[in-house]
């Protein structure tokens, strides 16, 4: 079979037959779809000889199924989704890989304005209190509510395998709250969060931009923590592909990564944020108010409707600091949280499977980078002062299992 191989001639980029260059890409209307939308609409994909058809969808379950059933070739996904898929968790898991991260940041935790007032009244919490102090104040309110026989607080997030689920749980636990016993976690579609908060159906939520800002500007919610407060390095959305499709379309995958990389660099430049906000605000993309999107991109947070504000530097990182690199450190951290909250058991084999979802090799090959392109190693500090070293994964996972939590598992 290898008789016609010429080792002195470089292998051609296209190895087998014509590849697919017309790609259907599914996305959910969120600011963190910026890189994908920009690649499709501002010519970055076309420059690489690709046509990207964007298809807006309404649920992560649809995105997952339509990728699995070949309705989509490319999918805007929550970073834990390919990991859950590889571990065969949830409904309809189908092998999925992530060769590109669409950036960091964008999430925040918002509590109802009324709940925040209660926290202030009961604990003397300052208007500009930090994320950890807010979690501790919430813990005090929860204890008081339990003593008074009130119903447990309901908090919304987006999907069982989402950064929002793990970030919300991390923040609650850092404040001393057990997310499975002290509160009720519910899934609320992001566009419905501020209405659900206003109606009192939920008492708070953790979702992506611009929905926190929309709730705070309406005066129904108070932003108490951003993703940066919890873990700045956490990957947010990724590009998901079917591994068999990626194998058959290696050249297209490389072109896609090059296009996304250029689009990400463009999105990261503050000089382009005006144009990006205009593009995102269009009805077919996000259809949200352009001024709110602009402030989201700038990290200018209106914390509430009373005028308390905060600027979060690097609230969105689309490209800088190797934000696009799908690092195994990130995949393993997500896996550690899946174990922590009982979604999967710990084993070294499962850890390897989880890490295999993030394909830094494809990212590196497309961009001509070294074999380990991500800045691997010990990640920056978390809200509770811990750090995550992937080399010490098992010890890290065990460190979360307190006798208390062990009893519920």
């Amino acid at each position, binding site marked *: 079979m290898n008789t016609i191989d010429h080792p002195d001639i470089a292998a051609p980029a296209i190895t087998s037959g014509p590849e697919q260059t017309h790609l259907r890409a599914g996305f959910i209307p969120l600011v963190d779809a910026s890189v994908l939308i920009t690649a499709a609409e501002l010519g970055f994909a076309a420059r690489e000889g690709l046509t990207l058809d964007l298809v807006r969808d*309404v*649920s*992560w*379950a*649809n995105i*997952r*199924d*339509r990728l*699995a*059933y*070949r*309705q989509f070739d490319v999918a805007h996904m929550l970073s834990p989704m390919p990991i859950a898929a590889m571990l065969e968790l*949830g*409904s*309809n898991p*189908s092998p999925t890989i992530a060769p590109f991260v669409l950036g960091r940041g964008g999430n925040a935790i918002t509590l109802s304005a009324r709940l925040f007032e209660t926290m202030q009244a009961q604990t003397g919490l300052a208007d500009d209190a930090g994320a950890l102090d807010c979690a501790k104040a919430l813990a005090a309110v929860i204890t008081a509510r339990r003593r008074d026989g009130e119903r447990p607080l309901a908090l919304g997030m*987006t*999907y*069982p395998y989402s950064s929002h689920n793990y970030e919300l749980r991390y923040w609650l636990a850092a404040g001393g709250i057990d997310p499975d016993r002290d509160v009720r*976690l*519910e*899934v*609320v*579609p992001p*566009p*419905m969060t501020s209405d659900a908060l206003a109606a009192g159906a939920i008492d708070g939520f953790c979702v992506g931009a611009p929905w926190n800002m929309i709730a705070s500007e309406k005066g129904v919610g108070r932003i108490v923590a951003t993703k940066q407060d919890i873990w700045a390095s956490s990957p947010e959305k990724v590009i998901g592909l079917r591994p068999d499709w990626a194998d058959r379309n290696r050249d297209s995958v490389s072109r896609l990564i090059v296009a996304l990389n250029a689009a990400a660099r463009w999105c990261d430049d503050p000089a382009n944020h005006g144009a990006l906000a205009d593009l995102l605000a269009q009805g077919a993309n996000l259809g949200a108010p352009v001024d709110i999107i602009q402030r989201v991109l700038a990290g200018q947070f209106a914390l509430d409707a009373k005028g308390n504000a905060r600027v979060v530097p690097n609230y969105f990182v689309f490209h800088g600091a190797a934000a696009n690199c799908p690092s195994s450190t990130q995949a393993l951290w997500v896996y550690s949280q899946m174990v922590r909250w009982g*979604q999967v058991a710990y084993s070294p084999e499962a850890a390897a499977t989880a890490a295999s979802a993030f394909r830094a090799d494809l990212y590196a090959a497309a961009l001509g980078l070294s074999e380990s392109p991500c800045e691997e190693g010990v990640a920056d500090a978390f809200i509770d002062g811990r750090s995550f070293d992937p080399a010490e994964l098992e010890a890290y996972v065990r460190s979360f299992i307190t006798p208390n939590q062990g009893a519920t598992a």
Partner: protein
Amino acid sequence: MSHFDLTILVIDENAVRAAIIEDGLREAGHAHVTVVHTVNGIARVIETTRPDVIIIDIENPNRDMMEHLFQLTRSVSRPIAMFVDRSDSASIEAAVEAGVSAYIVDGLKKERVKPILDMAVIRFNAFSRLQRELADAKSALEDRKVVERAKGILMKLRNLSEEEAYALLRQTAMNEKKKLADIAQSVVTAAGLLM
């Protein structure tokens, strides 16, 4: 045991479409069908009915909420999304296009589920057709109204008979390669501005 013993839950915010699906299921001999129009309180419904098959419209953003619920309640044992037979791409495409999604209790034989899904797809499509026809009929009625008004304006302003007014509108539409209703609308709009 026949496939008619399956318990089926239909979740659809559109009450008319839900009724069409329910009819289809009952006609096919399914006696255990529950229909709900809202996902509020769905946990209890799932707990009490213990469905083998859940049909939910694909445009419903609450699918993510359902999947979270499956993790919590465990009353539906490991429900899997949509298709038992992933190689059957024609059915998958037909269902996605029709807007049907479904959950099926793991272990259920595909021969038992396929007729249910096929029926749901046909009924979803029938509903879309119905809606389209209704919209067409409504716009035809609107068109006729505006043509009548345009004719009236022309008859009054240019002293034409009804036939002549209609002929003038039609001729103009043909000359301009536009729809009769569009020309009539321009006449009505112009008259509103000029009179």
